[in-house]
């Protein structure tokens, strides 16, 4: 076998192996999207009820709560970026991080300094590589977050918020960046302000009819105190679940195009290998014919 042919065959083998891997990853992600989507929809009743409750309390009581009122002179803002732990998901993490950069620039324009809270190894590595300050980071659950994870994150954020910007680590605002799962094909990185709250923004149609006058037990202030942290948790949880679904969708798409590219490559390599083999055969034949010719003319000359 000729050297050229051997090289082509070797490359084909390696591309085929890669294709098997990407194909497997595509299938795994495809099956996980469904599960992730189910988790998103399982968490919506809770989020909706909570939103309803918060808007009811907020609109029917005159309580001024630190979580709902903007602070007069904000100095520091927390930005929570939700990214992936693993790569191979196309531009998924990059988009979230980019959105974070934009939000950061916007906040700095307003005269605020930014404290970064990061979820996922990709965002963490990005910040670490650039030697930026990280307020806190969590890794290891980006593709399958639990409510406990969301709780942990929101506790850290709320703690920083309640400290206020007078202290070293406190913040006055909290923003979140996550990837909204629109459909299998579209996911977009979205930035939202979480605190001070902008209450009411569910995907569902607004609750019909006017909300009734509520009685509060024990009292509106206490109820808000208990309600708002849960609300934040639920929103962070929902953001994480949506991001997880988006991550799987992005990975599936990236792996699908990798598989397609591998197919393409295999096809062109096969053609090249065939041409090389043919060339080899042609050469061999012409060598034999040439050799026979030479022999024939040599023996003819000796006679």
């Amino acid at each position, binding site marked *: 076998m000729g050297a050229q042919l051997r090289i082509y065959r070797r490359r084909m083998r390696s591309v085929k192996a890669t294709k098997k891997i990407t194909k497997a990853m595509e299938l795994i992600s495809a099956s996980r999207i469904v599960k992730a989507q189910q*988790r998103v929809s*399982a*968490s919506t*009743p*809770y*989020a909706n*009820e*909570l939103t*309803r*409750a918060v808007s*009811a*309390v907020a609109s029917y009581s005159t309580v001024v709560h630190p979580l709902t009122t903007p602070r007069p002179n904000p100095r520091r803002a927390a930005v929570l970026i939700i990214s992936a732990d693993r790569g191979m998901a196309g531009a998924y993490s990059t988009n979230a991080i980019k959105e974070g950069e934009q939000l950061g620039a916007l906040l700095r324009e307003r005269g605020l300094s930014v404290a970064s809270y990061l979820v996922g190894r990709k965002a963490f590595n990005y910040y670490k590589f650039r030697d930026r300050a990280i307020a806190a980071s969590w890794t290891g659950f980006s593709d399958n977050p639990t*409510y406990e994870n*969301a709780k942990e994150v929101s506790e850290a954020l709320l703690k920083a918020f309640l400290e206020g910007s007078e202290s070293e680590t406190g913040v006055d605002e909290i923003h979140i960046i996550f990837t909204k799962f629109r459909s299998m094909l579209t996911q977009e990185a979205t930035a939202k302000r979480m605190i001070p709250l902008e209450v009411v923004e569910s995907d569902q149609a607004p609750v019909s*009819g006017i*909300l*009734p*006058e*509520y*009685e*509060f*037990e*024990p009292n509106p202030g*206490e*109820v808000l105190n*208990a*309600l708002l942290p*849960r609300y934040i*948790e*639920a929103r962070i*949880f929902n953001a994480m679940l949506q991001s997880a679904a988006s991550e799987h969708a992005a990975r599936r798409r990236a792996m699908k195009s990798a598989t397609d590219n591998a197919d393409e490559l295999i096809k062109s390599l096969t053609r090249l290998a065939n041409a090389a083999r043919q060339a080899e055969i042609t050469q061999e034949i012409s060598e034999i014919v040439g050799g026979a010719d030479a022999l024939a003319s040599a023996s003819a000359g000796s006679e």
Partner: protein
Amino acid sequence: MALNVALVSPTQQVWTGEATFVSARTTEGELGVLPGHTPLFGVLVDGAVSITSSDGSIKEFNVSGGFLSVSNDRVSILTESVGELLHFS
């Protein structure tokens, strides 16, 4: 007339359906809800929530904290974690 009850946790909808009576423990003490209850919003403490559904069966759930809201015979119970205690039928 019956109550429209929804017991939900962050990860799932635990129980929904029609009920005639709901009882829960709030920070102020034991609280019972019958159809026609005035709109109410309460903070729950750890303890049992019991729902008497329209077919007469009683369902008890163990909740750890949460909220109870009542409006127009619609009762929603929000809790972070829930476990079913007993199952009478």
